[in-house]
């Protein structure tokens, strides 16, 4: 007997094709893995589709990592090479792609979260714009850019935030030169177009109203150049009459009664005694504060108390030292003198609140006024807005309230007022912690998220990350975003100016976005007759 079959021996040509590439070999619902040729060009951030014909599902995943691997047992084979020639290298050397599942489109065309995974060896392919039709289901009404896939953008696939989510606080995180101002202008223009909530923006640099010069020296356009959406914009400015007339802008004025003593905490450092004095005067009207302190000489013998007409307030001040009162006097004097828009009577705030209630973008334009003025205006407006909304107490999320008002307050360099301490930032902290209940949200703009109070970050439902080089900053962001951004760390590190990772409620996964260039977006908006911007645009991948 023989253990061998009796047929003739045969010699088979083995398949010279390469079926091992572009097929799913990962084993987790949390991350996909597949191999591609070692010389293939693929980028971190590329979005790929995995078709599972068995289940009738199309999965989508974003490339998070690429690394060289080989079938060779010697892991250092590449260090020992004695020549540059390698025959048949592609059979054993390849790139392993790690990809983050984004979700899948089921048989009914509905996009779902990635709670299942494709069949083993499902084919991986580059998607085209039509594959992303499902995104139209999940995108919002505040357009900011185009969906990015690796180095390319998917033309016709726009990224739009949900206006209903915006007042649930938003963070814009970007280092200098990453296109933060451009993003804000695009965001403002879309808000002017959508008119779904009021947006407040205080601009101490004067770059938003009529444009200016970009970080690269290029002239830029401003919000007033969005002619088709002009009705969605209200500008309050301290500029001269000629400028105001040219662009039909309003003058900015605050009156003394808009002022409250705690505003000083934001603008000056205070000793414990000085802080106690400020807190004591919290409920005193601004006009009384200014009149009392600016027209009173606080003598050592307290003779001033006998002559002042503000007896009730004077009694509160009785226990404070002359020096403390003089500091208060000096600081109020600085505040009044350095803010020419601050006057005894006549305030723009009622108009500003009305414009916000009309869901306009309200731009407070105070060029050349300095940080103190900016923070003062911001503090006053934030308090007034919060008070108004508290008073109305219309609440958020109550569908039966027919005319709920929603306002988003933009705070640039927000780490100044939303750091981890200081009573001077109380109004902003209140907005962050309680504002959502009253329809007041914060748009926190900062390049140092690690210096923003983590409790504030935890309140945010929208993160716009435009490149952060500091590892701690990225870790803070990843730790607070509602969607897991940690697998996108490499992509965040490699973001180029004008690119962003956006994580927001309503869009089921973090989207890599090429923010529209404002001038181009403006051009499209002004030419727009009707329909979405995507119509008629190039939809090729």
């Amino acid at each position: 007997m023989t253990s061998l079959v009796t047929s003739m021996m045969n010699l088979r040509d083995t398949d010279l094709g390469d079926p091992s590439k572009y097929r799913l070999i990962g084993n987790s619902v949390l991350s996909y893995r597949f191999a591609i040729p070692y010389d293939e060009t693929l980028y971190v951030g590329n979005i790929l589709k995995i078709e599972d014909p068995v289940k009738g599902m199309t999965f989508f995943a974003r490339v998070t990592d690429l690394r060289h691997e080989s079938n060779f047992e010697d892991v250092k084979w590449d260090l020992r090479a004695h020549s540059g020639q390698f025959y048949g290298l592609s059979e054993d050397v390849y790139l392993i792609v790690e990809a983050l599942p984004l979700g899948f489109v089921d048989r009914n065309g509905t996009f779902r979260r990635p709670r299942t995974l494709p069949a083993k060896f499902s084919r991986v392919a580059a998607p085209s714009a039509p594959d992303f039709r499902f995104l139209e289901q999940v995108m919002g009404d505040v357009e900011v850019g185009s969906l990015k896939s690796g180095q390319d953008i998917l033309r016709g696939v726009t990224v739009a935030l949900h206006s209903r989510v915006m007042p649930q606080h938003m963070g814009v995180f970007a280092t200098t030169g990453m296109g933060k101002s451009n993003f804000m202008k695009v965001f403002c223009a879309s808000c002017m177009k959508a008119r779904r909530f009021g947006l407040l923006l205080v601009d101490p640099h004067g770059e938003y109203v009529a444009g200016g010069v970009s970080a690269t020296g290029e002239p830029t356009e401003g919000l007033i150049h969005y002619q088709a959406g002009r009705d969605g914009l209200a500008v309050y400015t301290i500029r001269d009459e000629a400028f105001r007339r040219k662009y039909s802008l309003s003058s900015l004025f605050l009156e003394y009664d808009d002022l409250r003593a705690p505003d000083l905490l934001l603008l000056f450092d205070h000793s414990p005694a000085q802080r106690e004095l400020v807190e004591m005067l919290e409920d005193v009207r601004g006009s009384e504060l200014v009149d009392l302190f600016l027209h009173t000489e606080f003598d050592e013998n307290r003779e001033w108390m006998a002559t002042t007409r503000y007896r009730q307030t004077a009694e509160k001040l009785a226990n404070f030292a002359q020096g403390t009162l003089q500091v208060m006097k000096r600081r109020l004097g600085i505040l009044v003198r350095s803010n020419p828009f601050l006057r005894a009577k006549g305030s723009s705030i009622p108009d500003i609140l009305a414009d916000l209630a009309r869901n306009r973008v309200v731009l407070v334009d105070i060029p050349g006024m300095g940080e103190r003025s900016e923070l003062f205006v911001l503090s006053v407006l934030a308090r007034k807005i919060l008070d108004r909304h508290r008073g109305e107490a219309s609440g958020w999320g109550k569908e039966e309230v027919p005319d709920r008002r929603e306002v988003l307050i933009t705070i640039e360099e927000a780490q100044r007022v939303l750091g981890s301490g200081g009573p001077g930032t109380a109004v902003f902290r209140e907005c962050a912690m309680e504002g959502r209940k009253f329809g007041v949200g914060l748009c926190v703009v900062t390049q140092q998220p690690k210096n923003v109070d983590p409790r504030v970050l935890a309140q945010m439902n929208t993160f716009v990350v435009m490149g952060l080089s500091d590892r701690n900053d990225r870790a803070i962001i990843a730790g607070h975003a509602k969607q897991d951004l940690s697998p996108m760390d490499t992509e965040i590190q490699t973001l180029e100016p004008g690119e962003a990772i956006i994580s927001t409620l309503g869009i089921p996964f973090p989207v890599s976005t090429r923010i529209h260039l404002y001038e181009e977006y403006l051009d499209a908006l002004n030419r727009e007759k009707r329909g979405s911007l995507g119509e008629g645009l190039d939809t090729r991948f």
Partner: protein
Amino acid sequence: MTGGDAGDDEYRQDLDALVGRIGSLHPPDLPARFASCFRLGPESYRRVEPVQAGILAAVDGSNAMLFDAGCIAAVLLRAAACGFSAGARTFRAVTPLRLVTLGQEARDASFSGLYRECFGTDPDTGIRDDEPERTAGILRDTLEYWVALRAAERLGQGDLLVLDGALRVTHASHEPVLLRLIRTCAKRGIHLCAVTKRTSVTWGGGLPLVPAALALAKAHGITPPWVLRIGEEGLDVTPYRQWRHGVPCVAALHPRSHLAFRIEVPGPTGDDELGEMVSRLAGWSDDGRVTGYPYPLLDAHRTARIPADAVGQAKNDLISGMARSGLDARSARDLLGDLHDEFARY
């Protein structure tokens, strides 16, 4: 004991003896002695230019012992041929993985059956089949020769067929097969040679051949690629001449490699033809992974190789098959009891 115990005198003496023996293989006057023994000078080294011309096909085989229970053993076999031309592989062919029993040739006719499958005739000479490793080698050679004949059919005038090993058979039954291969190649104008990764050929009373050729080349400042014919009269071992059909040479194939190999070409091969063959070998020896070794041979080796996971799979298949036939795992283990796998776990 996991290694030598340096505290034992006997162990140290053994180690010293081994070191001395190895040292004696590379005496200080090695180049001079080698040159004198074979009457070699710098002109004896033939310099060649690396070229890639026509097709270069390489053949290799592989065997892996599945188990060895003393009274019965089983081996996995396969062989492959790979053809290359113009910088890329043009074909790759491999036999099916074969599973052959050893140790009971008289009953199982494993060798003769395989031989008959390959060549359509019974072997002239049977095998003793009392040493599984040796029998496995003969079976592997059987497949390799058959694959070499099939590969030769795909080649044409001027192509080169390279075997892994020597133009010398290790079993009498392969003698007519090798002769048939040599004649087929000669008739069709195909160049034939064999390249040996490891050789037992010695000279001068046990000195290895290849290091001596390298040392003499270095002494003369001759850089690869080169080939050196070796006169048979200087070689040591008489059995080497048995069933031999090749002329021994040594070749170094890449200037940045320390590797050299014994190569063999059929008897009447002239110097020009030898140079042409070595040029082609050198032309394919520039791969960065094993620089200095003809890449087609490496490719054939990797194609035929039977990796550990394939052996593991075959073991699982065997256990499954036995279970299907009603043999429980315990009985199977009793029958095939090979403790090496058990030992390997510790």
